[in-house]
């Protein structure tokens, strides 16, 4: 692969990314390219290594091997906070609200870290809270939120850092069915602002609505990749994943 850099480089790239826990290859030589403004979906059964891949991309974990590139720059050795300040944000599958801060303050933090003035940060926080549909809960403490509200807070908080690439880990996971269409809409609108998205999602309907391209992971490896409809229709994918899900459902 030619070293593409600067303006032409993809938004985010993983090259041969690996993570071994003890003897478990949680992520095994993953290659991933996310174009600018593209929305890539990542699917795979429980334990496939999706969240671990995110932890490697976002810098919460150091890889055993491989590289991460952000707009062509090698960021493999960067800390998580530095990656965020360079435009790479993420949400957490197991939500991590700041429990003793209000929803408003939770979102304020990201904007303040970027060096916004108080007034600008407050305006941004109010706007984002409204954007994810949490206005009515803005004064509530992080510890007082329902699962759906926590997922929305994760979104607003990640957006408060003004990312160019956003990693979304099961935004609809554990959320009541009625809230799902609203969340899909929020994510779609984020994509429309030009933010590149990487979306981990168990719900096939959701992922096909949001992602143009799908990557299927199994046991840390990329098994299939391609246009959303095509990957979802593949036999091996259905056998490994959808079948399992249908059985579970």
């Amino acid at each position, binding site marked *: 692969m030619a070293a593409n850099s600067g303006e032409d480089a993809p938004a985010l790239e993983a090259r041969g990314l690996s993570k071994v826990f003890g003897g478990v290859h949680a992520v095994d030589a993953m290659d991933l390219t996310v174009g600018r403004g593209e929305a890539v979906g990542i699917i795979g059964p429980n334990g496939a290594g999706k969240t671990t891949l995110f932890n490697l991309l*976002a810098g*919460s974990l150091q890889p055993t091997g491989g590289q991460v590139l952000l707009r062509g720059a090698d960021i493999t050795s960067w*800390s*998580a*906070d*530095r990656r*965020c*300040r360079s435009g790479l*944000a*993420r949400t*957490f599958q197991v939500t*991590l*609200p*700041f*429990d*003793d*801060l*209000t929803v*408003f*303050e*939770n979102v*304020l*933090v*990201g904007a*303040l*870290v*970027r060096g916004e003035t*108080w007034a600008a940060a*407050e305006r941004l926080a109010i706007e984002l809270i409204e954007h994810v549909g949490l206005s009515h809960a803005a*004064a509530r*403490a*992080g510890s007082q939120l329902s699962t759906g509200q926590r997922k929305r807070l994760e979104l607003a*908080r*990640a957006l*408060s*850092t003004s990312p160019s690439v956003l990693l979304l880990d099961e935004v609809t996971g554990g959320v009541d069915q009625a809230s799902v269409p609203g969340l899909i809409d929020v994510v779609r609108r984020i994509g429309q602002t030009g933010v590149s998205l990487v979306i981990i999602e168990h719900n096939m309907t959701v992922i096909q609505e949001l992602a143009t391209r799908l990557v299927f992971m199994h046991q840390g490896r990329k098994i299939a990749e391609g246009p959303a409809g095509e990957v979802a229709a593949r036999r091996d994918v259905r056998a490994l994943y959808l079948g399992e899900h249908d059985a579970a459902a």
Partner: protein
Amino acid sequence: MRLLPAWLRASPRLWSGVALLGLVPLITRDAYVLQVLSLAMIWAIFASSWNLAVGYAGLKTFGHQAFFGIGAYVSALSAMHGGLSPWVTMWFGAVAAAVVGALVCLPLLRIRSLPHLAIVTLAFAEIVRILCSNLVDLTRGELGLAGIPPFTPLSVPGLGLVSFGPADRASTFVLIWSCLAASLAFLGWLVRSRTGLIIQAIRDSQVAAESLGVSLTRYKLFTLTISAFLAGAVGAVYAHFVLVLTPTSALGIALMVQMTAITLVGGIGTLQGPLIGSLVLTVSAEGLRMAGDHRMLAFGVLIVLVVLFAPRGLARLDLLFGRPSQAAGAAR
């Protein structure tokens, strides 16, 4: 109300309480009462410095008595041997404590497990205490460092020369009260500032804070340095107030236990908690003197009761003190 800064508007009860406390010398000149309350205010400042690190930033350290003692000894020794005024040397004490605080913070940042952190910080403070008792030539060890000069007289417009010697309990009370008010005002401003919000985010989730671009190292280092500075400064005030220091009294584990009790009883992570805790515990400890031999038992029962009925501290009891506004943003 709008004219007042946000931190002042946010905790009206705290500031009314502090103001009332400042009026005590007008009500009584009783040396014993003033002495007890002066000490209580010193412990309140000390506990507030610890509260900043533990209650606001989630930095669980159990070695703050080292910063208190370093501030006390550095200020006392430089005033005694350098012939400088305690008004100057107290800042030496504070800076020395802050420098040590910054240095010990660096290895601490790598430790994530609470028991390990507790042992390491406690061991650090014990090393400082043992060093201090062994440097007999300098500190006179457990024999005690005596002859520490009190704060030198200040000329106050309208009052003339005000002195702060052992006989001047009222003026010393006002001096320490000013330190308390200044410390609380500073902390009140700090915890509502950008940095204050960010350190509270770190307390609630380091991983999430980091994912929002927060450099954990930078903010933890900052917080512990400020916290140690404050502990060192109040340690220096203590030295020029009690005028005698021993490693046990200024650096001992008992200090840490006392400060932890004060903070927990009062309400950890609240601005008013350490002051409430300190006043309640100091005053009741004095009041219980009449219980004689049963004093410590009664004191223990009191702490157990508070922990049972106000597990998050007296400051968080709605009926007594009103709910502290958690929402800095909502108050703004």
